[in-house]
């Protein structure tokens, strides 16, 4: 069952290098674990799981190179259902655990699945630090604007005034806008999609995979038990055409029936939604995912206060920056080149020794 470890290089992680994958093409079934899925019937998590399981084989990444990490919550059950490596961690700490994995082993593809409470309440600090470090993680936040697993308390993304078990008279806090938080935290890739977006969801995930570094994806997810219909303004038929603003790089930001509405930037620095006809097509702002300065992406994140108004979906930002684990490996190599590989005797002997005969 086990075999002794034949001294891999210290610098290369633990260096399992055996080639795999490639040969046989994998299917969705290969990524489905034998564990029964335990979400409530009708939960939006099912659709996300299906999308991910379907996407995986297409990526051409061997299963054994994939790790799913999560915290605690309904969303956090995710890793159990994928036949990859997985860690079901503790509440809020998934980004930290995942940072350890991805930094130790830049060869792995590490995904993090978090609920909105997991990611932005108890785990807020780890999330923003993972983003600024640009650790090579795909961070999916299932935003159902509620605490599902603990049976319905409001979350940091719940709208103000929300009546829940812990706020029988209405919540008092302004919710976080997760896209704004991520952009404020120097995230290099920030996107939003939705559980019911059968095509958009995998497209966005694919983009996240293509981005080496931290990719933060907010996924609106319906909790039909404790917060049913929170995304109705986007998921309803009218909402889908009227309120979803699909962002596409280099394209004018338009939406609504026949793209009749669009976004312009005023010289006073304020974005506005206008009738395209009334201002002329050429005034409509072009979306620029690759812009180094995150200000425009931030401004777009403020178009809607919550998913009840016209809401941008898609990639807000996608810029390149050195990846934490890669940069660290680089330092390791540089040190080995400069100082030679580590020798314990030399280390201990240091400079100040003396001898007694």
């Amino acid at each position, binding site marked *: *069952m086990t075999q002794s470890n034949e001294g891999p290089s210290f610098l290369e992680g633990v260096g399992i290098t055996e080639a795999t994958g490639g040969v046989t093409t994998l299917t969705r079934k290969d990524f489905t674990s034998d564990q029964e899925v335990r979400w409530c019937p009708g939960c939006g998590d099912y659709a996300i799981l299906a999308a991910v399981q379907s996407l995986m084989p297409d990526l051409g990444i061997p299963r054994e190179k994939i790790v799913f990490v999560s915290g605690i919550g309904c969303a956090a059950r995710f890793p159990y259902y994928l036949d990859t490596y997985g860690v079901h961690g503790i509440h809020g700490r998934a980004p930290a655990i995942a940072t*350890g994995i991805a930094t130790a082993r830049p060869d792995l593809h590490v995904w993090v699945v978090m609920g909105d409470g997991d990611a932005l309440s108890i785990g807020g600090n780890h999330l923003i*630090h993972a983003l600024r470090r640009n650790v090579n993680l795909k961070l999916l936040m299932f935003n159902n604007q509620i605490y599902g697993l603990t049976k319905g308390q409001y979350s940091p993304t719940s709208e103000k005034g929300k009546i829940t078990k812990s706020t029988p008279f209405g919540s008092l806090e302004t919710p976080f806008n997760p896209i704004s938080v991520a952009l404020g935290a120097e995230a290099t890739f920030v996107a939003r999609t939705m559980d019911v977006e059968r095509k958009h969801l995998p497209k966005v995930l694919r983009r996240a995979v293509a981005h080496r570094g931290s990719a933060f994806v907010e996924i609106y997810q319906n909790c039909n038990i404790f917060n049913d219909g929170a995304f109705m303004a986007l998921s309803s038929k009218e909402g889908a055409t009227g309120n979803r603003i699909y962002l596409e790089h280099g394209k004018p930001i338009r939406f609504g029936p026949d793209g009749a509405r669009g976004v312009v930037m005023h010289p006073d620095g304020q974005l506005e939604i206008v009738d395209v006809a009334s201002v002329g097509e050429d005034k409509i702002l072009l979306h620029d995912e690759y812009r180094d300065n995150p200000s425009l992406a931030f401004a777009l994140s403020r178009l809607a206060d919550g998913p009840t108004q016209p809401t941008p979906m898609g990639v807000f930002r996608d810029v390149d920056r050195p990846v934490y684990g890669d940069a660290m490996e680089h330092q390791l190599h540089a*040190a080995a080149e400069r100082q*030679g590989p580590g020798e314990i005797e030399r280390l*201990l002997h240091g400079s100040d020794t*003396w*001898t*007694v005969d």
Partner: protein
Amino acid sequence: MTQAPTKQGERRRQELDRVVIRFAGDSGDGMQLTGERFTSATAFFGNDLATLPDFPAEIRAPAGTIPGVSAFQIHFADYDILTPGDQPSVLVAMNPAALKANLEDLQHGGLLIVNSDAFEKRNLEKAGYEANPLDDGSLSVFQIVQIPMTKLTVEAVKGTGLSKKEAQRSKNMLALGVISWMYGRPLDPTIEWLEKKFAKKPGIAQANVLALRAGHAFGETAELTAYEVKPAVLAPGTYRRVNGNQAVAYGLIAASVQAKLPLFLGSYPITPASDILHELSRHKNFGVRTVQAEDEIAAIGMAIGASFAGHIGITTTSGPGLDLKSESLGLAVALELPLILVDIQRGGPSTGLPTKTEQSDLLHAMYGRHGESPVPIVAAYSASSCFWAAVEAVRLSITYMTPVILLTDGYLATGAEPWRLPTMDKLPQIPVRFATQPNVGDQFWPYLRDDVTLARPWAIPGTPGLEHRIGGLEKADGTGNISYDPENHQLMTEMRAAKVKAIEEDIEPLEWRGDEDARVLVLGWGSTYGSIGAACRRLRARDIKIAQAHLKHLNPFPKNTGQVLRRFDKVIIPEMNTGQLAKLIRAEFLIDAKSITKVKGLPFRAGELEEKIVELAS
């Protein structure tokens, strides 16, 4: 071996077998550095030695005040010694505050060397002196040597072009020069060090060297008494000085080499543990990855992730950080992954006395997690033993697939001692066997245990076919799937406990030393080792029968512990807490162990222990 420099024409040096010197001055006076350099030279010279730095928690407390005093004590001798000494026989006081704060400890008849220039009105006031103690006869029980150190320094470095203020900064080197002359320490290592350290600021280097030489010359021309402490007869070998934090870092690296696995440190700075992070950060050529995490929780989380990925996950901290790591440590217990948590104990509770030593995290290490969550505990007992303790922690952690807590304390962390360097063949083998194949038919069960160690297999990402998921919910025995089955929870709880208990078969038995017919055993753990040893020596010198044993494993205890303890009529346990080991011993063995406790932020003095042992023994 380099010999003490004996100048021609030097008078005969007065022979001593041991000396305890304390350097004390303002935080800005460089006393730690002075002490360090003197220690280096002393080690180089061949004495056995032990040191005790003692500095304020502030970066730099107001100059000239008592809270701003920083001190460094060194004990050196021509025989093997165990502690940094109870009371200094020599006190170097750079200003009135340093004098006031330390005088009480100086032996009657001891040597008091002061920077007389500093005893002017403002400084005297700041220290709370109404009259100048150098003048009012209050110091008459001591041998006082007044040296106008500031003036001498300024004069000595005149040629360097430094301003007067800059020049004065070298007065610690002048003091070091004086003391070096008095105790026959070589100057060369210090000069070499200064030149290296200030390579980019040759003016400063030069000034320091000039001051050092001037001090040496002053000693000679002023005809101060010269002493000689012969080199100690030490076991042959190559020696270096090491403090506990360095030794932990080296031990971890050595273990990584033995295990042929890379180290991954997730840490958040905290006194007195930060230096381990600093030290490990420097050895990237060993493949050591260090992350300064956003907090202690992230730090341990990252280490857990790294262990899952097949590295040796390490996290280092002190008390407050240990608190914060409890939840994640519990996760590591459930995941059954290797992980080494190093806790450098300091004075508590809360922020407490951050730069002072204490042994008060033992019960926290034992029980500081919710649920039944057993973790092996290893404790170092001397600066150099930190090396071995770190290696042992890694060995246990990997062999038994379990987090391990390694306890040291502020005293070990910063105190230095000579260390005979081990040869690599003395290091234990740490075989690592990653799982590479299914273990139940064509399935891989991540919780199928080894019969002997009860360890589960370690299958790391990248291994095809062994994809599996683990987590903090209770796991079914074998498969590791989530299980809420009552019987399974009972079984798994027992299993986790049995795995830790099994370690008792794999560790050194508890040794005791002392008089065969002793009826009293002094049992210790951690950094009290030196003090207890010295106290027992004193007792034996008084013909009092005594035995001594020291625990290096606190969980589980060595298998023979009960047997050893029951051999004696009385077990006395000195601890720098309010009796934590005593609680464990009493509960486990139902022995009426007696405690000697102290929580003053300082190690036991041998004399103090000696007395209390006598009291309790009778």
